[in-house]
């Protein structure tokens, strides 16, 4: 029993140490925006909610609603962090959202806005655009 408890304690301490090192991921903001855009075109409201901060959740769902009547896909999406503003990371994406209705395509340029991304409880969340 004593050996068992010691083993468990060692595993927990090692894991905590490893996770502390692993959590310094500076691609997190870019990945959050990419996931956000993927959820948007997939019209996955649940996923979109989990990727948005409290103040942006309504806007994100509103944006998703605007795509409900069309089929959407991403074309050539590539995002990068262009800078920071205090605790907010700024992420710019290239590529387009292609919205189709009745075989008619409308292209929405992703590079016209910069995404503001913040870290909350270890997770990067989209929190607005500029």
């Amino acid at each position, binding site marked *: 029993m004593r050996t068992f408890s010691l083993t468990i304690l060692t595993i*927990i301490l090692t894991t*905590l140490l490893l996770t502390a090192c692993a*959590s310094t991921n500076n691609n997190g903001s870019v990945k959050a925006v990419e996931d956000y855009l993927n959820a948007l075109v997939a019209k996955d*409201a*649940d996923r979109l*909610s*989990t990727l948005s901060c*409290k103040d942006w*959740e309504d806007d994100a769902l509103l944006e998703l609603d605007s795509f409900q009547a069309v089929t959407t896909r991403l074309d050539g999406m590539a995002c990068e962090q262009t800078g920071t503003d205090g605790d907010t990371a700024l992420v710019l994406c290239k590529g387009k959202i292609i919205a189709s209705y009745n075989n008619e395509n409308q292209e929405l340029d992703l590079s016209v806005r910069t995404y503001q991304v913040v870290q909350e*409880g270890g997770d990067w969340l989209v929190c607005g655009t500029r």
Partner: protein
Amino acid sequence: MGLIQVGASILTSLLIGVAPWRHFAQTARVYLLLAFSILAIYWFQPAVPLRSFDFWLPSTTLALVVLTWFVTSQSGAYTDAASPRRRGDRSLTWRSPHNLIALTLIVGLSAIIDLSRYFLPEPFITTTPPPRFVLFLFFTIIITIFISLLNWLSHHFRWMLSTAIILLIFILVILKMPALSVQASVLIRTLTNRSIENASFTDLRWLGFSYIAFRLIHVLRDKQAGRLPELALSEFATYVVFFPSLAAGPIDRAERFAQDLRKDFVLTQAETLLAGQRIAIGLFKKFVIADTLASIALNDLLATQVRTTGWMWVIVYAYAFQIYFDFSGYTDIAIGIARLVGIKLPENFAAPYLKPNLTQFWNSWHMTLTQWFRSYFFNPFNRWMRGLKNIPLWTMILIGQVSTMLLIGLWHGITLNFVFWGLWHGSGLFIQNRWSDFIRTRYPTLGQNTRLHSALQIGGILFTFHFVALGWVFFALSRPAFSWQVFLKLFGM
């Protein structure tokens, strides 16, 4: 369960089934089944808008399973003088090697799933990234303290078992009552810094909780009644979260399930064929028939769009068959997959639409649920009523049947439409009971005329099917007002 999940379950079951278990301990098979069931509850859990709740909900399921095992196992539960606890028997305590392995498996696999957020670019089993490990650790510590406390209390107080039942019913009521679900979502959103404007009753879609809660209540009640056999944690947890029956039942009995687990099992060719046949039938029922019928089956939108009486009957019939093929299809798949690993799950359906009266319909529709209610509500409630003086028989039958069907309705959701559905069937059962009694006493020779008997049988089948189909109008639609409109259209009004 989608097709990919069904496919993965079949493949895993086949691998477990064909493994040469006679060369190993049968317990290895139980651990494998438990391991896959743990992974399955995380994998099958649908995404929810609350961050990391596709991890927290299955984790809470596992916590409840472990908690219930602690309070019902011989080492923890209150036992009276009639069945004294065997002190010093380590095989019965949570410290026994078998139970420690199962406990490590449950906590370890959950921890690995959580840790995957640090080492994998995408979540590998949950739909969204799991929470930070420190939160999981905190959760585990809290649960451990809670379980230790309840375990200690359950040694001394019999009411701990009742407390555990009340806790499960409380969670079930929150999940099933939209107004309470919204409030729970608001609370969680406030605590986790989320927008409360978007709180919805669908935020807490907890995979299979209705079935899990009923399995747990069954073992708690059987423990109270002194009927529950001693189960190892691996057997208990596998029973509650067994992956084929996780999402849509059937609700097996723990002692029967454990018997199958303990048997030496070798997957034979004949068994594989039988299981394969059952799975194929289930897949066809669910993904071909039910999914095709779904497009024309009664729903809120179609109820308002359909204008003619004829088409209204068509969509009501379509719903009646869709719900049957969907549910019985899932059951066939679950029974077939379980057979591959040596578990014979109980049947849930026996041609319910071909029954000549409502009592027989309810003996062949979702049979494991009705048996559960019969064992844990209807029979004890009737026994209690019989003990009361001055209650006429017909009143007892009315109260017993209506309250049971009302509870079955509420199990599906605590909303008005399910209340009406329960009342519809409860009163139907009462009327049928009284009618059968009347016919039996007034015309005792009626059944002896073969032709008349056949005609009555066919008439009974048609009448029962239509009664059930009309009942689905309450079940399928979200508001009684919609149901009323459908009834008016069905009868040309």
